């Protein structure tokens, strides 16, 4: 565990020594707040509902999380530090977990900094704190899943740019696929499959304030799968 933390600490130091971390956090906060208050006619609805805000957070993840994770492996390979990491006494799983923790922590900071928004809105009406907890749980789970996905893409990508684009496309697909399925009025099995794959579909209950164990299991399995795939990818490279 201490070796996992060593990796995570190194990652976070690099992130906060450069403008990357601050840029990502600020753009996440700006995007969600501006969209909520100015673009989505929040005030004209005359209703203190936070669902929209949490939906926006998931949409923001489609580009914010890839911006956090794009460097993970692609940058290490470009600068050669990849070779350092793989020849220091770490297992592949420790490297993957350490990087995951660092990126997840950065996403958590961004998420926690949104708390003033629901608190301010709660002054306008009465709020169920249980709903808010479920909403935040959903956002945190989705962020974890997205970070695992983004790092896996980075472990395959040649450079940061393709890592970003690859992860962003994957996220956009996972966030919007169920909306597309509904829009095109797919029916039956196809719709069920697309819904089941979709991050947005599993996120929906959370953003309404309902924590469903099936959705919880989906996000955790999703994250674990991509962490495993990244580990496998590192091991595979040693033989090539």
């Amino acid at each position: 565990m201490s070796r996992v933390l060593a990796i995570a600490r190194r990652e976070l130091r690099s992130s906060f020594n450069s403008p990357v971390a601050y840029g990502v956090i600020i753009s996440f906060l700006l995007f969600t707040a501006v969209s909520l208050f100015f673009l989505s006619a929040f005030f004209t609805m005359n209703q203190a509902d936070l669902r929209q805000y949490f939906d926006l957070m998931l949409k923001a993840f489609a580009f914010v999380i890839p911006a956090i994770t794009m460097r993970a492996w692609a940058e290490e390979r470009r600068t050669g530090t990849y070779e350092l990491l793989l020849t220091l006494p770490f297992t592949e799983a420790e490297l993957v977990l350490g990087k995951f923790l660092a990126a997840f922590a950065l996403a958590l900071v961004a998420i926690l900094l949104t708390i003033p928004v629901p608190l301010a809105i709660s002054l306008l009406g009465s709020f169920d704190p249980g709903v808010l907890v479920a909403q935040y749980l959903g956002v945190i789970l989705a962020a974890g899943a997205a970070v695992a996905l983004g790092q896996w893409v980075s472990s395959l990508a040649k450079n940061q740019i393709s890592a970003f684009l690859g992860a962003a496309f994957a996220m956009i697909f996972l966030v919007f696929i169920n909306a597309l399925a509904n829009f095109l009025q797919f029916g039956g099995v196809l719709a069920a499959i697309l819904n089941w794959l979709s991050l947005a579909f599993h996120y929906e209950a959370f953003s309404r304030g309902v924590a469903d164990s099936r959705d919880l299991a989906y996000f955790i399995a999703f994250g674990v799968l991509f962490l495993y795939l990244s580990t496998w990818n590192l091991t595979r490279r040693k033989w090539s």
Partner: protein
Amino acid sequence: MGSSLGPSWARRELRISQGGTVIEARELRKSYGEREAVHGVSFVAETGSVLGLLGPNGAGKTTIMKVLTGYHFPSSGTALIDGMDVVEDPLAVKRRVGYLPESVPLYQDLSAAEYLDFAADSRGLEGAGRRAAIERSVESCGLGPVYRRPVEELSKGFRQRLGLAQAILHDPPILILDEPTTGLDPNQIIEIRALIRELGREKTVILSTHILQEVEAVCSRVIILNEGSIAAQGRPEEIGETLKGEERVRLRLKAARQGDRLDARRLEALFARLPSLRSAGELREDQLHGVFSAELAFSPSSQEPGELLFDWAVANELKLLELERRRLSLEEIFVKLTSEGGAK
């Protein structure tokens, strides 16, 4: 700048019996896709020695090091570090090895201090031992003046030394250094070579280089690699002997007496009188008339070419202005090794 190693290294207890085999490669092969970079290489390295891998770019030096450090797995064959297989027990191998890759991997966003801090974390160093290890590395690599500076501001020389400081931080019994002196200025090269020699007294060091003098300056054994195979191995002096075959001397001369004009034809006739002369290169007349220079190759004989030439010059009323023994360049060594079917 960099001070040589303090006595703290020497006092350290040896963790491996003196002179034992610590690194062993058996029939190592490594392919990248279709291309095989190393074709069945076997060698051993012992404690208290510096083994040099010498060869041009693409000879397989770096690939061998990547296999020994567990970065790449071999396609076939085995690599043992302290008796442990790099494929089966990679973590234990990595703990015992300090590695400086050719690319000198550093994190640009960190300071030198933060970088070494990460290395110490990864090695599980704690408390007083950790502080002492960092201090010792910083001192032996002369990093004091840049310790707090960000890596991206460091010169090539300091980057190289920071990479080396990372490799020796945990006082590993085995050090693998890929071209450790590239990018250093001559003074730094001397310092780093002295440091490597010092480390080689009680550790097992493998270094790669394409500079012949580097091998002669620091290595106790050398393996010459060419196109992924061992072309020759032995002590540097032995390799020199096998390669000798002929001795090359460059000289400048003129007639001993004033007014006695030399010409090329007469000189060539005189060269023919030299015992054990194998061939004479092109004769060139200086802008200063009557002064000629040429490169001569002698077959091996009991007599030194220099001595022969002095006697010959005196006997033929010539004056030697310059006499220089030519070293074989690495390129010439490879031409010889590959054209004459290898030295061993």
